């Protein structure tokens, strides 16, 4: 029995197609990522799978249970951390945790081994109201509350949004450790660099899945060479490259631009030569998930 099965899910809000024909499965013990920007439909999908919203069309099961007919059982068996912080701000860390344990007919002690790792980091502040915690601590508390009843499937909707790189890294380290306990996890994020931390990902944009695969395969499937380029005046280099018809795409990537071409690289060099760019450097680059995502987006836009 697969932890999550989604088949041809559609959902619209008025004229807005929030989800269009979404299908995927999450395997036993898998850490599966939904990667996409705001408006991709990630949260809508989470709400359908956690039985808080009805799809217009299509089916889905969680832990073998139908999200419409067996919603009551699903609610008892899954852990859900919504995108917006939704714990009780005027209850302390301890009180929040006890509250969620009680709701699920259990105690913090009963499943303490599951949350121990995470809870110990916030335990020194156990008497502090949740509303007065830093972003990173809120996130850890929310994760504890989602885990306290030992869920069979864990749903994490944008747990790292708006969080600084240090806390983000800590959070993913926690997910890695949770994975070893065998709980399947569906997690969403707008940060493309987090995709490589998942077993498999679905790249989502405007309510549709553009691709599903392992991060390694997505990168390997990037069909063309990528060139890293830089010059002293990056802004001028971007404009010059985009004005050249031999350039298929040109995007800033940290220190360098990532450029793909539909001509020989020599032609690009010949085009740039008379333009007098100081400090020009061109070398091969390894494409990443973000390159793949943007290429898929560009293809999607060209089709539309």
């Amino acid at each position, binding site marked *: 029995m697969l932890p999550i099965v989604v088949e041809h899910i559609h959902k619209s809000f008025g004229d807005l197609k929030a989800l269009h024909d979404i299908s995927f499965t999450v395997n036993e013990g898998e850490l599966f990522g939904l990667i996409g920007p705001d408006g991709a439909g990630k949260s809508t999908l989470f709400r359908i799978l956690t039985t808080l919203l009805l799809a217009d069309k299509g089916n889905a099961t969680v832990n073998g249970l139908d999200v419409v007919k067996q919603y009551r059982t699903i609610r008892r068996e899954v852990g859900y951390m919504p995108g917006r912080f939704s714990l009780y701000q005027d209850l302390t860390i301890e009180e929040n945790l006890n509250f969620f344990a009680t709701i699920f007919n259990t105690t913090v002690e009963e499943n303490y081994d599951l949350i121990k790792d995470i809870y110990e980091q916030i335990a020194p502040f156990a008497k502090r109201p949740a509303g007065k915690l830093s972003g990173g601590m809120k996130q850890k508390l929310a994760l504890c509350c989602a885990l306290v009843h030992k869920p069979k499937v864990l749903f994490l909707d944008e747990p790292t949004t708006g*969080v600084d790189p240090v806390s983000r890294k800590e959070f993913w380290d926690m997910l890695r450790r949770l994975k070893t306990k065998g709980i399947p996890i569906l997690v969403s994020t707008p940060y493309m660099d987090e995709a490589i931390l998942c077993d498999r990902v679905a790249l989502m944009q405007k309510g549709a899945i553009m691709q599903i695969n392992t991060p390694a395969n997505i990168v390997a499937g990037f069909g063309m060479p990528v060139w890293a380029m830089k010059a002293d005046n990056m802004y001028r280099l971007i404009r010059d490259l985009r004005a050249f018809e031999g350039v298929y795409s040109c995007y800033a990537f*940290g220190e360098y631009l990532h450029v793909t071409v539909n001509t020989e690289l020599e032609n690009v060099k010949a085009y740039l030569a008379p333009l007098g760019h100081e400090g020009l450097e061109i070398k091969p680059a390894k494409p990443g998930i973000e390159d793949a995502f943007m290429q898929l*987006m560009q293809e999607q836009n060209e089709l539309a």
Partner: protein
Amino acid sequence: MNNYSIVTKDLTKRFGSFTATDAITFEVGQGEIFGFLGANGAGKTTAMRMLCGLLKPSSGEAKVAGYDIYTQTEQIKKRIGYMSQKFSLYEDLTVKENIRFYGGIYGLSNQQIKEKTHALLDRLQLEKEARQLVSSLPLGWKQKLSFSIALLHDPSIVFLDEPTGGVDPITRRQFWDLIYESADKGVTIFVTTHYMDEAEYCNRISIMVDGKIKALDTPAGLKKQFNAESMNDVFLQLARAKS
């Protein structure tokens, strides 16, 4: 040298016994893209609010666009633009109404507002959406519109507080094209971000840890100083060091 857009010396803000911003000293040149980084709670927002003339410092000095942040906050507000991910535009006004509203706030004449509106809609290719409510626009468009509106009154500095959070990767880069374009025209850009690749697009970067500026240099200089491959490594080394 008078070409500084922002100059601070030992700028400090205490809330009770807590020092949110602890004696920070730095300068930002006119037309520079300055990245203001730090972990959540490092004191970035407090510092930014002081520089925008919204919060009185506890001690230290600072000048923004040549004006003193203790005594000339009204002049500062006229010379700066501001946008953040959290608050930017009025969702239940149309695109055009938002432009007119902010034009009015900044004291532009009707003629100026008309010209600016036209130029702005043309540049962002938003003519068709001019009469739509802002709430109906995709997030990326809102952010681009919001940035352009922050520049409506030709400020000499614009403060951007996590302007690209949650935006798709292509739009995020288009947003940076707009930033480059403005800096090229001489506008000073003061920007915070959690995307470390964006830190690389800045001319210089400061990294705050626990209220203090722990590092300040060009991206290349910082990577060299910390013997790191990427800005992400630099950030992790610095921000991690404290805990």
